[in-house]
């Protein structure tokens, strides 16, 4: 058995299967959470019947419905590109999970350049969005796709710069290394060691910038201009139906999961919780990480149902005039603190 598990290919297949099963499952939970939370914010009940209690099976029922729908491709569409685009988007979000550590051992691959890889893989999805917008042969889709592209260029930079502060502080780009660095005691009061995640070690600005840029990257309100259903009908999603639409839909929530997991790992300590032995962390790590991720996902959902949408030019001006200079200042400040302290 153990011999089989040490075989690279068997292990790889196993890991891929787990990710392919767990990520959509968690995404379904987030979809359900969004349905319920938005309902309660709007004094509605939300899903109620599907599955009996609380309507827990609503996302499954929706998914089933989508699968039954006809897979429409517009006549003028660039067929291969049109069909391939949703896969690109979904794959890019799934690819991020390669480096997310759920516990000290439970990680597909702890790359030395983990941060670099995560950001690169995460931004890859925008190519899929551009493909979708371009190939749909629809003006709304085109505007939506191009908006997504402009948004990516504007917000990838603050996203990366916000992370640089953490990388400087941790001295590593490996995700597990960053968690381990946050697990190290910051200072001790007598016998009692104080552990703090990077959010409370001075990376507040970095965290806020990361969350804002993350929302823009995920096309979530207040930065959902690429979809903007009141202006662009459904943006780059306009022409999609059935299973391909489901892929985009799933990718949106999987993206929320992956970006929140990155944020939780970088700024909130990932699978680490002070006061637990390393043995307990092996077991409870995934639960701790998921709790932190859920918190961030709740905030994202909360924003969505509270804020209106910004305008594209306003979004650009926020990125270039505020977030990037602030992120640069944050790097300078972190670097000085790292040398002095």
């Amino acid at each position, binding site marked *: 058995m153990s011999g089989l598990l040490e075989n690279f290919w068997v292990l790889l297949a196993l890991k891929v299967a787990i990710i392919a099963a767990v990520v959509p499952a968690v995404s379904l939970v987030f979809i359900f959470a969004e349905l319920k939370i*938005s309902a309660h914010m*709007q004094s509605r009940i939300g899903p109620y019947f599907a599955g009996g209690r609380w309507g827990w099976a609503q996302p499954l029922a929706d998914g089933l419905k989508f699968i039954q729908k006809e897979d429409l491709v517009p006549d003028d569409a660039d067929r291969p590109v049109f069909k391939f685009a949703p896969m690109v988007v979904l794959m890019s979000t799934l690819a991020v999970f390669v480096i997310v550590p759920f516990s000290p051992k439970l990680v597909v691959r702890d790359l030395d350049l983990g941060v670099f890889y995560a950001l690169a893989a995460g931004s890859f999805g925008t190519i899929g969005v551009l493909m979708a917008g371009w190939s749909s042969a629809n003006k709304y889709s085109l505007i939506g796709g191009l908006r997504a592209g402009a948004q990516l260029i504007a917000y990838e930079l603050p996203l990366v710069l916000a992370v640089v502060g953490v990388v400087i502080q941790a001295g590593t780009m490996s995700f597990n290394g960053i968690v381990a660095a946050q697990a190290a005691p910051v200072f001790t009061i007598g016998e009692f060691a104080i552990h703090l995640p990077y959010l409370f070690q001075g990376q507040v600005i970095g965290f806020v910038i990361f969350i804002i840029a993350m929302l823009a990257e995920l096309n979530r309100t*207040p930065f959902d201009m690429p979809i903007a259903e*009141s202006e662009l*009908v459904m943006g780059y999603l306009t022409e999609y139906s059935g299973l391909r639409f489901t892929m985009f839909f799933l990718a949106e929530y999987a993206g929320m999961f992956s970006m929140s997991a990155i944020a939780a790992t970088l700024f909130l300590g990932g699978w680490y919780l002070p006061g637990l032995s390393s043995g307990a962390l092996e077991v409870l790590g995934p639960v701790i990480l998921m709790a932190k991720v859920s918190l961030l996902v709740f905030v994202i959902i909360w924003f969505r149902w*509270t804020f*209106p*949408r910004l*305008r594209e030019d306003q979004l650009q001006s926020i990125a270039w005039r505020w977030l990037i200079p602030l992120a640069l200042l944050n790097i300078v400040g972190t670097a000085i603190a790292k040398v002095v302290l």
Partner: protein
Amino acid sequence: MIDNRLAAIHASDVSVSVELETPEMTLNLGPQHPSTHGVLRLVAKVDGEMITSVEPVIGYMHRGYEKLAEVRTYPQITALVNRIDWVSGFANEIPFMVAVERLMGIEAPPRAQYIRLILTEMARISSHLVFLSSYPLELGAATPLMHALRERERVLDLIEGVTGGRFHPNFNRIGGVKPAAGGGSGQKKVLQDLPAGFLADTRKAMDEVDDVCDDMVNLVLGNEIFVKRTRGVGIIPKDRGMEFGVSGPNLRASGVKFDLRKSDAYLPYANFEFDIPTGANGDCLDRYWVRMEEIRQATRIVRQAIDGLPGGDLQAKVPRIIKVPAGEVYVRAENPKGEMGYHVVSEGGRGPYRLKIRSASFSNISVLPWLLVGQLVPDIIAVLGSLDFVLGDVDR
């Protein structure tokens, strides 16, 4: 074009920086579009996201009410006119009724006039609540919709309690309002006209409407992003607005203190105290704010009207078959969407010879081709929504 230039560059074999030419794109918004309030169609020419020209195409909702009215009797027309602007159905009936009554030389009894006034103001509240809730939705905020529509439902319930219909009350009769169901012609108890508990329920509902206005201030007007999206967007200057025939809250937002409730005595508004809120800049934010203040003024009027509700008949003496003497009259009223007027031409007989309907939304959207040029695509939606038109009111 680009090919020619490139060919020219190749031919001359000199390196010249070619300025990238971006052709204009025609973007067809509507008639099926989430934010055109029905079936308005806008043919916009866009350069990137900048609008260079826009042409509204109307008529998809045309139902020919003016023509239909010519082959109907006056009481039948009531059912037509409250379908013009269906968001505030009750308010549409009033100017028509008043016009016919003026031609006949009669006047509704005071109690009927007060009931008309209360329900008109309620129609105004429900119409403006739809605007307050749906406008943020057009800018991407989904939650205010639910909060404001909840209170609107209370108001509609009250209207339904009195008239029997939420949207199309069909409650006015020439010379008064409909007597209570079952009351019949021999109705003795005049107080049966309003359902039991209506006055108390209305007072409570008005408090709740005021509360939801406060909520909207917190949720929408106090929201930095909302202000950013609306301030300075779609400015209609005073004189421009008047030139285009813009009326109602849209004109008042531009700073024109003009309200037919004060100047025309079609309902006893002179008995009540209320203010006319006016904006300063005439942008989308002002149009939102003005409507919110108008709701507060409307609740104020309703409260006063309930306190001073006179007793008496519901119906003036009218013949069994209504025949209107020859003549013509134009009566206009301050409807939620703006100035609504009916020009009734009678040649004697049971129906009008001609009925011209002046609806507010039609004139209000005539400003669009001028207003939208130079705006961005997202601002089309912001401006469209802020004008608060109903396609039934545009096309009639």
